[in-house]
């Protein structure tokens, strides 16, 4: 990464941060991923409660944001191996609850690292993770934990996440490109979180989100989902339960 060209910005350091990052999440994810209930209810908390934990990479040449990282602190007293199945949704709720109750946090949790599609191939993902880790260190937190979305799993929707996690490339690194970015930076896989995000919608909503049709109840493969969704036409409800992978970066 060209460090002169790309600068790390945060809401406290840039008054127009909110405007600069607007729309970035939208271009980075398949439509259905934008309908996670927990995300929609709590998203504003990132800026309201945890502004110092939000950061973006600002492209000084084109005066726009190229990537964004969202995280927050939370309290976890058990071993990391017992981190909940609820992954992403759980962490977000936990962080907000801890903050409301004034509990002092001991872990740093990242919930999103997105690279704008125009900037893929600029090798920004590693510097973004480094920037997020720098926050862990600056805040004196124990480690950075992340419910990682292994995005290439969408090509393997019938393989269990537990099996997929064990797949390696010839170098012995994780098969999945996102898991591999983390592994190269020293991130370690803890385990699967099977219910990291739960997305519910009516049949009509799922049809609009995916441009598919769901004429009968059953399991469906939808583009970019990591596992099939379950559609129940009688209840008029489709449910997608996304598995992610808990990873940890120790910062010393």
């Amino acid at each position: 990464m060209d460090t002169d060209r790309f600068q790390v910005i945060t809401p406290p350091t840039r008054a127009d941060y909110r405007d600069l990052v607007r729309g970035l999440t939208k271009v980075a994810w398949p439509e259905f991923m934008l309908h996670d209930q927990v995300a929609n209810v709590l998203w504003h908390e990132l800026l309201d409660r945890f502004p110092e934990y939000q950061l973006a990479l600002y492209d000084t040449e084109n005066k726009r944001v190229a990537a964004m990282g969202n995280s927050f602190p939370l309290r976890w007293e058990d071993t990391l191996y017992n981190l909940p199945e609820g992954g992403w949704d759980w962490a977000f709720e936990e962080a907000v609850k801890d903050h409301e109750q004034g509990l002092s946090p001991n872990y740093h949790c990242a919930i999103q690292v997105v690279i704008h599609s125009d900037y893929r191939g600029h090798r920004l993902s590693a510097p973004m993770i480094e920037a997020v880790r720098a926050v862990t260190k600056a805040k004196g937190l124990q480690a950075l934990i992340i419910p990682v979305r292994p995005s290439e799993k969408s090509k393997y929707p019938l393989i269990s996440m537990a099996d997929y996690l064990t797949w390696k490339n010839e170098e012995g690194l994780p098969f999945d490109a996102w898991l591999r970015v983390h592994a190269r930076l020293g991130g370690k896989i803890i385990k699967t979180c099977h219910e990291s995000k739960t997305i519910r919608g009516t049949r009509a909503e799922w049809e609009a989100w995916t441009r598919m049709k769901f004429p009968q109840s059953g399991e469906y493969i939808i583009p970019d989902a990591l596992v099939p969704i379950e559609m129940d036409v009688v209840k008029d409800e489709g449910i997608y339960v996304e598995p992610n992978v808990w990873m940890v970066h120790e910062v010393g």
Partner: protein
Amino acid sequence: MNPNRFQLITPNDLADYRDRANKIAEASWPEFMLHDPIADEYWHELFDRFIEYQFAMLDTEMNRMAAMGNSLPFHWDQDLSELPEGGWDWVFVKATEDHKNGVASNIQSAIQVAIHPDYQGQGLSTKMVQAMRAIGESKGFRYLVAPVRPSEKSKYPLTSIDDYIAWKTDEGLPFDAWLRVHARMGGKIIKPCHEAMTIRGTHTEWEAWTGIKFPQSGRYVIPGALNPIEMEVDQDEGVYIEPNVWMVHEIR
């Protein structure tokens, strides 16, 4: 559009007919579909034994082959509802055996209607099915049957073909675009043929055909396939069994 732009031609009209036709097949099908052993072994029979049943549509403005149609005659004296599960593979072998044995044919089967991707969406599919029917008519056959590949089923690999063919549009026509082309022209669905094509390959072959990796045994969804494939890593074999739909056009 110039109404005479597209002209029906036969294999004898062009010296390089078969080369040009092969290019259409390569452009219109997912790679793995070109590895059906029956097709590989018997394809030449279309030209050696059944040349009058092969035709193509030539774009006279560009001097390009835009679409091709392949069919063959065979003998069938049972009810159409008894047509075998073996569909495409079966009918190719049956027609060849009948011809070898001097058994008189009384019915026509479609083998392929392929439209080059550059020419899709221009109404050529209807013209191609009409041209195929005209051949059957000239031979005095009553029926044109076809093991039809419902190509949009590839978006619904977890739905059974039996359920899929019951799906309708708001107009009451088949949900699948290819089944609909036939239905609009009077074609009727007879039933599914669950083993219309059987394609086998080694682990390495399937990886080359699909761009997907198969690190462990199990079912995999692959792009363009109507059902998942079954990969057996220990036996070094992946098997894809393609379901098609027997349809019939009453020619007279």
